[in-house]
């Protein structure tokens, strides 16, 4: 029966869901483009999510996620598998997002509220919820980049300090210190808003 079930798995399940990331990475490195498409299926969401939290708006997040996923493909031949594929992807997305933040720092916060409302529920609905989302998003986006990255990776992605240190090429004490400062700043902003 189990085998019969497999024969009908084409209905919509992710192709290649039986195998681990390392297998897909190896096949993709050999030039099986489909294997990379499966990796994008699995982890494309991560790229977009992190970019959205770091940049605060849908448009930039989509751009950065796309850039990061294409960059990952281009750099795949050099990926030795020392870390997991998601960790490596976090690294690429974070770097890309950081580039964009530093390039557009002057204007970045101007249109945040509008942009984020678009990405939420329908217009006019859940007005209070949107206000909260906007306030948190704006507060996160106002953090200096190192604190923002640490806060997003820890509090939004649930990563440990050690994982964040690996991703950012930093030390665990430095990550901890960015988190401490980021939490203070964010708390003060949110307390004022409330």
């Amino acid at each position, binding site marked *: 029966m189990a*085998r019969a079930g*497999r*024969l009908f798995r*084409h209905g919509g399940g992710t*192709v*290649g869901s*039986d*195998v681990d990331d390392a*297998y897909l990475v190896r*096949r993709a*490195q*050999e*030039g*099986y*483009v*489909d*294997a*990379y*498409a499966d990796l*994008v*299926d699995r982890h*494309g*969401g991560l790229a*977009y*999510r992190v970019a*959205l939290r770091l940049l605060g708006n*849908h448009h930039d997040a*989509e751009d950065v*996620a*796309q850039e990061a*996923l*294409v960059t990952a*493909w*281009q750099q795949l*031949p050099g990926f030795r598998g020392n870390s997991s594929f998601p960790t490596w992807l976090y690294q690429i997305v974070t770097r890309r997002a950081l580039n964009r933040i530093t390039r557009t720092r002057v204007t970045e916060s101007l249109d945040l509220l509008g942009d984020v409302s678009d990405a939420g529920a329908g217009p006019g609905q859940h007005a209070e919820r949107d206000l*909260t*989302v906007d*306030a*948190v*998003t704006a507060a*996160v986006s106002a953090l200096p980049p190192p604190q923002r990255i640490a806060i997003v990776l820890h*509090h*939004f992605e649930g990563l440990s300090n050690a994982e964040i240190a690996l991703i950012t090429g930093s030390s665990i004490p430095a990550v901890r210190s960015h*988190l*401490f400062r980021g*939490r*203070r700043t*964010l*708390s*003060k902003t*949110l*307390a*004022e808003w*409330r």
Partner: protein
Amino acid sequence: MSSPGQPIDDVNLLLSDANQHLACGADIDELLEQAADGYAGQFTSHQRDCVYCQAALREFGRVWEPVRSLAAERVAVPAALKGAVASQIRKLVADVWYTLQLNDGGAIRIAARVVARIAREAARDVPGVRVAFGRSSHSRMASLVERAALGHRHPNAAVGVLGRTAVVDLAIVAQYGDELDAVAREVQRRAVAELRRKVGLRDVTVNVTVDDVIT
């Protein structure tokens, strides 16, 4: 530092830069970390008896509630993202083309990736095959394709005319315990048949690599 007996009603005051400890000596950053991580209600033995700590944790927990609820929300990934990435990668990987007809009306060509896709789909239908990936190449062009796929910086020169001959590499993961030889031969047979039927390729070679098994 907060004074004894005074309720903590101002997070900003509490978190002013000079403030590192509560009146009881507890580290403010560690309390904030505890609340932000969602453990404001889980007291240590000291916190169970400490009004300062409890008040601070309550305040921090309240301030962080919106952050925690936003973080818990599922983010909808734009539907177009995957397609956009795929199309950019296709541009990076130079494609090999199979020309099926060349006549006065023009040429009919089929991308190698389409050939690979058909072989892959055929392989996935074979009992015992858990995962299959297809890659199309041609003995004469194989090294070019290989380089295009690995180096991702191939000029348009890799767009080749390969006629009606195709070489397809299939990498499959099989069910442990199945006769691998029989599974692989069935994959070969079906892929060849499908490529002949759907694409009209005459000379088809299908290389099957069983490179893993799953229980």
